[in-house]
Structure formats: C-alpha cells, structure tokens
C-alpha cells in the first residue's frame, strides 16, 4: 500500500521533471524567421571582402547605425549580382519599392539598456567578433527566439534557462557585460548601461 503511494509520488516527480527540463525550454521561446536569407559570409569572404564597418557605420556624433538601411543595399544591388533567390526577393520586395527590410535583430537589447558601440569599438578597440561571435561568417540566418513572457531574445538571455551561475559569453546579459568589465578593470555604475 505504502510503496504504491511511493510509486505515485515518484511518478509525479518524474513527469514534472521531464516536462520542466525537456519540453518547457521549447514552449517558452517563440521562433521568428527573418524576412529574407542573408549571408554575411558571401559579403565578407575574399571575393567581396567587405569589412563590418563598411555596412555597420557610425554617425559623426558617435551613434551606431546598426543594421544598414535599404539605401545601403541598393548602392550595390541595383541590378542582380548573383543568382540566389533571396537576392531576387531583395530586389523585388524591398529595393524596387524602396521599403526597409523588417530585420529581426538577434541581439536586440530591451529599451532600458544603453550600449555605446563607439566607446567599445573605437575607444577600447574591441573586435566586433568578440561579442558578435561568428556573426560575420554566417551563411544563412537562423530564426531568432524570443521569450513568450518577457519578449527577450535568447541571444541576450543566454540559452541556459537558469542564468545562475552566470556563465559569461553564453549571451549578452548584464552578467556578461559586467564580468568583462571587471576583467578589464572598468569601474561601472548602474546608469552606465541603464537608461
């Protein structure tokens, strides 16, 4: 009788554990596909040989422009340069009508976060790849994952569900920023990164 109860007890535990560790991570994130497939690799590899700063530019007042506007694409893609379907899509849907591409940004920080690319890239001379690891050589764009509750991108948050203990560089969380700051001996205060 009693062990029958025990069985039930552990059954319940097992079921919930399985759900929590296996199913839950998939339930909580919502995948969002990119409007068109873009290959960083094609643009950065030797035959085109673009550098990051060729497209991801700065204003003279130090603002980072982020993902380039369609103008930038047009400047090269006025007429097809390749044969990929996505390039054709680019021409048809965006360049010709002159619409902006509704990119989904993987590393989209929430509104309350301030980050200056200028100080990190120009002043500290940090290589883009240091934080956007491997981005420059991706051949296609995987879907972005956003939390269904908070709307945070998984690339910010880190993939591990419990961000404790915080493992650096698994994402772009506060912990990741500050652990690097500490390593570099950067004195930081809350308002340095929160607006």
């Amino acid at each position, binding site marked *: 009788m009693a062990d029958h109860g025990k069985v039930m007890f552990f059954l319940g535990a097992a079921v919930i554990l399985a759900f929590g560790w296996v199913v839950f991570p998939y339930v909580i994130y919502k995948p969002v596909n990119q409007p068109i497939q873009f290959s960083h690799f094609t643009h950065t590899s030797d035959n085109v040989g673009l550098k990051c700063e060729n497209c991801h530019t*700065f*204003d*003279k*007042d*130090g*603002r980072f422009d982020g993902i380039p506007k369609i103008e930038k694409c047009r400047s090269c893609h006025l007429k097809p340069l390749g044969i990929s379907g996505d390039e054709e899509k680019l021409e048809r849907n965006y360049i010709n009508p002159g619409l902006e591409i509704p990119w989904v940004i993987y590393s989209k920080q929430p*509104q*309350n976060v*301030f980050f*200056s690319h*200028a*100080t990190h890239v*120009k*002043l*500290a*001379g*940090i*290589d883009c*790849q*240091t934080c956007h*690891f*491997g981005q420059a050589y991706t051949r296609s764009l995987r879907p972005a994952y956003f939390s269904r509750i908070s709307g945070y991108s998984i690339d910010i948050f880190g993939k591990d569900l419990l961000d404790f203990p915080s493992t*650096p*560089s698994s994402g772009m969380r506060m912990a990741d920023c500050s652990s*690097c700051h500490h390593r*570099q*001996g*950067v*004195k930081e*205060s*809350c*308002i*340095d990164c*929160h*607006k």
Partner: protein
Amino acid sequence: MANYESRNFSGIAEETNYRKSRYGMVIDVDRCTGCGACVVACAVENNVAPAPPAATDRTGITPIRVYKVDNGLPFPDIRSVFFPITCQQCEHHTPCVSVCPQNAVALDESTGIVGQIPVRCLGCRYCIVACPYHARYFNWWDPTWPAGMEKTLNPDVSPRMRGVVEKCNFCFHRLQAARSKAAIEGKKDIDPADYVPACVAACPTQAMTFGDLLDENSGISRLAKNANSFRLLENLGTEPKIYYRSDQEWVKRLAENDLTEKEKPNG
C-alpha cells in the same frame, strides 16, 4: 567560451576608466524669472508623460521643480525668489542610496551623479521618504500620451513604467552621447560643451551654470566658491552638489535651515 578568453583589447584607450569628475550646478536665484522653461525642457527631454487629470502638484512628475519662496514678511515688505529644485546629487552618504533595499540607485563613482534605475526599482518609496529635498518622484500612473504624441519621445531615455521612482540624473544620456562623440573622434575626455543638461541649456536667462566641480578652471568651480553661493540643508552633511547663489541676505539665510526662525520663509 573560446572567443571569450581570446578577447583582444588593442584599444587606443590605455586607461580603461574615465577621468574622475564631480558634476554640479550653480543656480543664480536672482536671475530666475520662473518662466518654467527648465521644467518643460526637462519633461520633454526625459519623456515625462503629461499629468493625468487626477494628478495634483504632489503626484505629478517634475524632475526639476520651481518653488516660489518668500521672506515671510507681510505686504509690502514681502520679497520672493524662485527656487528651481532638482536632485541635489548628494555626495556624502547619499540618503536615497543608503536606504534602497535592492541597489536601484547608486552614486556613480566617476561622475558623482546619483543614478536611479527604474527597472530595478520595486517602488517601495523608501528613498522618497529619505530624500530631504523631495526631489524624487513616484510614477503613480501608467505613463500615457495623447494619441500620436508618443512619436515625439526621446529615444535616448526610456519611459518609466507605473510603480517606480524616478529623479533627475543630470541628463546622463547626454554625457553618454558626448562620450560616444569623443570616442568617434578618438578622444577619451569629452568636450564640456557637449554635455549640458536640458534644463541648463533651456534657461533663457542663464541662471543655471553646469560643469565639473573638480575642474579648477571651469566657471562653476569658481562660482561655487563665491561668498554668495550656498547649498540647501548644508548642515545635514550630505554634501549636495547643487549650489544656489543670491545677493539678497534673506535668501542666503535659507542655507542655515533653522525652522524656529521668526521670519519663516514660505514655499
């Protein structure tokens, strides 16, 4: 993981930190006409939502607020001045910082600016109770703008949600912008002209002077030492970094906050 270890910092900045500064303000109350430009400029710059109809002068949000203060004498001996009151950026055991249970407010070591982080705040309002200058404001309502007006919000400042405390932070985002500008030009130190809070920039009579108190040859450090400059509640020992100046004796007497004084000034 791998790339994390292999981070290379071949930056032009040999020193990782910014030069220590202590930003402060000197407000000449003899020059304040009470026009309200600073209040509006601040509200616009910092995305302060318009007060809902139910709001009172004690539930609205005015990171800078102008008090009319008089010498307490009857007509016609009455004399009055306007006192723009904003966060006084206390340097020494800052009342609000010491009481916050979850570090939602901190004194920035490098600039001396007291920064409030609304997203960390749980809205217990202990800091409001602790602040002797009433320079902290609670978001009693959800911030709402008339239809379409949200288009005019300043992208450099994030609107606060209901239920958190906010305050003046000397338009810190303007310092950030100035730093980015300097960085692009390969400089570390900002050009002082690039960093002026919205209220100071807006004052038509230039009653407010802003700058680095540590910088010996800045106008403000000279003004702050002026004999006619004083600070409010100076003897509470919190070392505020906002100075007021006036040539009028009765105004200067406000520095020594003896409440039993016969001529009790009125707000």
